[in-house]
C-alpha cells in the first residue's frame, strides 16, 4: 500500500482531516485519564479490610442518660453479655470505631518521645479481649489481649496503654526489618507502648485520600470505651444468621435498658452496608467516568463512520476510475483503512501530549497520581481499534463501487 497518494488526497481535505484527528486526540486524552480514575476507584472500593465482613454488623449505641465512666463501662459489659447470649450471635465486642467507618481517631506515631516530625500516622481502635476474635482478624505474631489488661477509658481520659496489637502495615513501617514484636513506639506521649501482637491486616477507620500514605496502618489498645455518649458494638453473627441477629440485637438491648438511642434508620448496619456507604462516592465516580467514556467512544466512532461515509460518497467517481484501472476490492478497502490509520496516528500523537497535560493538571489541582504509561498504551490500542472498526463498513461499501461509476458524472 502506497502512503503517498493517501496523503495527497488528505491534503485536499485538510480541515476535515484535522477535525477528526483533533477529535481522536481529545478522546484519547479524556479516555486514558478516565480509565485511570476508574481503575483507581475500583481498586479503592475493593480494598480488603482483614475482617470477617459477611458475618459482621455494627450497632451505634448512644446513651439516653448521663453515665460516669464506671457506670458506662458496666453498661457496656452488660450489653455485650446480652448480645453474646443471642442465638444468632457468635461473639460481640465494643469499640470507638470500626474499619471503613469514614473517620475516627488517629494518632501521630514516633519512634522517640521528643521526635519533632512524626514517623507515621495510625488509626486507633479500642478493643477488649474479644476484639480480634469478633472481627475475625488474623493474628500472625505475638498474642491477643488478656481480660485483665483491658482498662476503662472515660471521656477524654488520656492514657497510653503499655501494650498494643498493631497491623502488619504499621509494624513494617516502624520496624522495616520485620522484628517489631516486643518493640516500643510512642504515640503523642512520653510513655511508650509495646507491640505484643501483630495482625495480618486491619483497615483504617477512614477512607480518605490524605491517609493513602498510611494505608492499613492501625493499632488496637486494650481499652473498654466508656464514653458518656455511647459506644459501637461490633457483632459477629453465626454463619447464615446475620439478618436474624441484626433484628434481634437492638430489641434485646432495648429490653435490657430503655435509656439508649439506636437510630432506626442507620443505627444497625451490616458490614456490607458499611462498605457500600464508605465507597459511595468512589463507586459513583467510577460509574460516571464509565458513562462518559462510553458516550465519548460512541460519538467518536459514529463521527468517523459519518465522515468516512461522506468521503466515500464524494469520491465514488475516483474510486470507479481506480477500479477501472485495475485496483481490486481489497486495494480500495485497504486504502480507506490505511487512510484512517494515518489520521488516527496523527490524532494519537497529539492525544498523548493532551493526556499527560490533563493528567498533570489533575495532579496539580487535585493531587491525583501520575498517569501510568500503560493506560496511554491501552487508550491508543482502543482508539486504533475503534477507528479501524468504525471505518470498516464505509470502506467495504467503497470497495464495492463498480468500475462503471468512472463513466458517470459526479
Amino acid at each position, binding site marked *: 500500500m502506497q502512503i503517498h497518494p493517501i496523503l495527497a488526497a488528505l491534503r485536499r481535505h485538510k*480541515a*476535515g482531516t484535522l*477535525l*477528526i484527528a*483533533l*477529535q481522536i486526540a*481529545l*478522546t484519547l*486524552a*479524556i479516555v486514558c*485519564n*478516565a480509565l485511570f480514575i476508574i481503575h483507581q476507584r475500583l481498586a479503592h472500593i475493593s480494598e480488603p479490610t482483614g475482617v470477617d465482613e459477611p458475618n459482621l454488623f455494627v450497632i451505634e449505641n*448512644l*446513651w*439516653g*442518660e*448521663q453515665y460516669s465512666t464506671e457506670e458506662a463501662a458496666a453498661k457496656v459489659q452488660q450489653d455485650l453479655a446480652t448480645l453474646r447470649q443471642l442465638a444468632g450471635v457468635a461473639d460481640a465486642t465494643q469499640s470507638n470505631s470500626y474499619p471503613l467507618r469514614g473517620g475516627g481517631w488517629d494518632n501521630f506515631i514516633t519512634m522517640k518521645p521528643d521526635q*519533632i*516530625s*512524626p514517623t507515621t*500516622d495510625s488509626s486507633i481502635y479500642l478493643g477488649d479481649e474479644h476484639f480480634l476474635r469478633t472481627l475475625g482478624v488474623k493474628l500472625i505474631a505475638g498474642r491477643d489481649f488478656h481480660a485483665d489488661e483491658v482498662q476503662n477509658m*472515660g*471521656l*477524654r*481520659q*488520656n492514657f497510653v496503654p503499655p501494650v498494643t496489637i498493631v497491623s502488619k502495615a504499621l509494624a513494617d513501617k516502624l520496624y522495616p526489618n520485620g522484628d517489631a514484636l516486643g518493640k516500643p513506639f510512642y504515640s*503523642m*506521649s512520653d510513655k511508650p507502648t509495646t507491640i505484643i501482637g501483630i495482625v495480618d491486616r486491619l483497615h483504617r477507620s477512614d477512607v480518605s485520600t*490524605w491517609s493513602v500514605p498510611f494505608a492499613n496502618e492501625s493499632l488496637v489498645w486494650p481499652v473498654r470505651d466508656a464514653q458518656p*455518649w455511647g459506644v459501637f458494638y461490633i457483632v459477629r453473627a453465626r454463619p447464615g444468621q446475620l439478618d436474624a441477629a441484626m433484628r434481634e440485637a437492638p430489641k434485646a438491648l432495648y429490653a435490657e435498658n*430503655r*435509656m*439508649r*438511642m439506636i*437510630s432506626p434508620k442507620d443505627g444497625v448496619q451490616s458490614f456490607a452496608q458499611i462498605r457500600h456507604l464508605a465507597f*459511595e*462516592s468512589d*463507586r*459513583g*465516580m467510577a*460509574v*460516571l*467516568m464509565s458513562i*462518559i467514556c462510553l*458516550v*465519548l467512544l460512541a*460519538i*467518536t466512532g*459514529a*463521527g468517523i463512520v*459519518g*465522515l468516512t*461515509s*461522506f468521503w466515500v*460518497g*464524494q469520491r465514488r467517481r475516483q474510486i470507479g476510475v481506480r477500479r477501472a484501472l485495475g485496483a481490486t476490492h481489497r486495494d480500495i478497502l485497504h486504502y480507506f483503512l490505511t487512510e484512517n490509520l494515518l489520521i488516527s496516528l496523527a490524532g494519537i500523537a497529539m492525544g498523548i501530549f493532551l493526556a499527560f497535560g490533563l493528567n498533570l493538571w*489533575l495532579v496539580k*489541582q*487535585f493531587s491525583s497520581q501520575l498517569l501510568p504509561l500503560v493506560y496511554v498504551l491501552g487508550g491508543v490500542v482502543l482508539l486504533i481499534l475503534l477507528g479501524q472498526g468504525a471505518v470498516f463498513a464505509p470502506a467495504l461499501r467503497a470497495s464495492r463501487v463498480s468500475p462503471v461509476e468512472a463513466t458517470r458524472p*459526479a
Partner: protein
Amino acid sequence: MLGYYVDLAVRSLKRSPGLTLLMVLAIGFGVAASMTTYSVFRAVSGDPIPWKSSQLFVPQIDIWGPKGRLDGDNGEPPDAMDYTDAVALMRAHRAKYQSALYRISPSIVPPDPSKHPVSVGGHAVYSEFFAMLDAPFKYGSGWSADSDEQRAAVVVLNSKLNQKLFAGANSVGKTVDIDGKDYRVVGVLDNWNPKPEFYDVVNTGGFTTDQEDVFIPFQRAIDVGMTNDGNTNCSEIPKESGFVGLQKSSCVWIAYMAELDDKAAVAAYKDYLDGYFRDQKQAGRFNWPLNNRLRDLPAWLDSQHVVPSDTKISLVVALGLLVVCLVNTAGLLLAKFLRRSSEIGVRRALGAPRLAIYTQFLIEAGIVGLTGGLLGLFLTWAGVISVGWVLPKEIATLAHVNLSLLVLTLLVAVIATMLAGIYPTFRASRVQPALQLKSN
C-alpha cells in the same frame, strides 16, 4: 427570507437523516453530560450567604507551630480553635458580631415515659451568632447577651424538631428536656439548614445529612459539660482528663466566625489577632513565628476544599466530552456543507451575497443545535434525577433542575453548535461559483 432558510435547512437535514441524527445525539449527550455535572457543581459551590459572605471572617491562630503539621499541610495553621483562645477572642469582642461555636449532639428526653430518648444535632453558640448569620426566625428570637453571661438554660429550636416536639406550634416559653435538664425555648428557626454548613465546615465537611436541631448558649453548654461532637485535633495528648481537660488543652475543636463590615475593620481585626499572638509568644506560649490567617468566607470555604474534588473533576471531564462532541459536529457540518458546493455555486451565481450563505448555513447549524438542545434538556432532566444513583446522598439531594438550568442548557447547545458551525460556514461561503458551475 428567514423562513426560507429554515425550510432549506430542514430539507437538507432530512436528506441525510443518519448524519443529522448523529449530530443531534452528539450535541444532546455532550450538553446533557456537562449540564448534569454543572448542576451538581453549582449546588455545592454556591455561596451559602451571598449577601454577606465577604463580611464574614474566620480567624486562625498558629497555636501548634511546625510540630503539629504533617508534611502535606503547607504551613497551614490549625483550622479550628482551642478553648483558651476562642474564649479570649470572645472576651476581647473586637468584631461587630462574633461567635465561637462547637457541634453538640445531646439527647432530648420526651415527657412521655413510654418513648425512647432521641438524639439530636446542633451547636453551642453565642448570642450574636443569629444576627451575624441572618438566621431566619419563625417564632421568637435568639437569646440576649445577658443570657450568654448568665449561662441561661435557653434553647433555639429548628422547625423540624419543633414540628416533632410541639407539632409545629409556637413553642416559645415552653420547656424541653435536653440531656436531663430543662431548657426554655426562646426562638424557633424557620427551617434553617444552609448548605454548605458554612459556619462549621471543620466538623461537618460542609455537606452532611445531619440536621441542625438545637442551638444553646456556648458557656451554658460548657458549664453543664455538654461534650463536643465532631473533630477534635490535638498536637499532644491533653494533660488532664475529661471535657474540662479538653478545655485546658491545646486541642482544637471550636469553630469561630466574626463579622467585619469594611476594610478598616478587617485590618484592625488582623492587627488585633497578630498582637494577640505576639503577646502570647512573649508570655512564652509559642516559640515560632507569627502565622495567623484571617480569611473571608469564600476564601475559607475554598481553603477547606468544601467543593469535593470529584465534583470538579467530573465537570472538567464532562466539558471535555462536550468539546469532543462539538469537534465532531464541526467535522460533520463541514463535510455536509462542502458537499453542497454546487448548490452554493448556483446561489452565489444568481447573486446571493456571502452574507446570505452565512445566514443560511448558520441557521442550519442553529437548528441542529436547537434539536440537540431539546434532547439535551430531556437528558439533563433525566441525569439530574438520577445523580442520586451515583453521588452520595448529601450532595445528590442538593442538585436540582430549575428554569435557569434549562435555559442555560438550550443556550449552550445552540451557541456551541453555531460556534462549531462557523468554520464550515466560512468554508461554504468561500466556494467559487465559477468553478462549481464549470465542473458541472
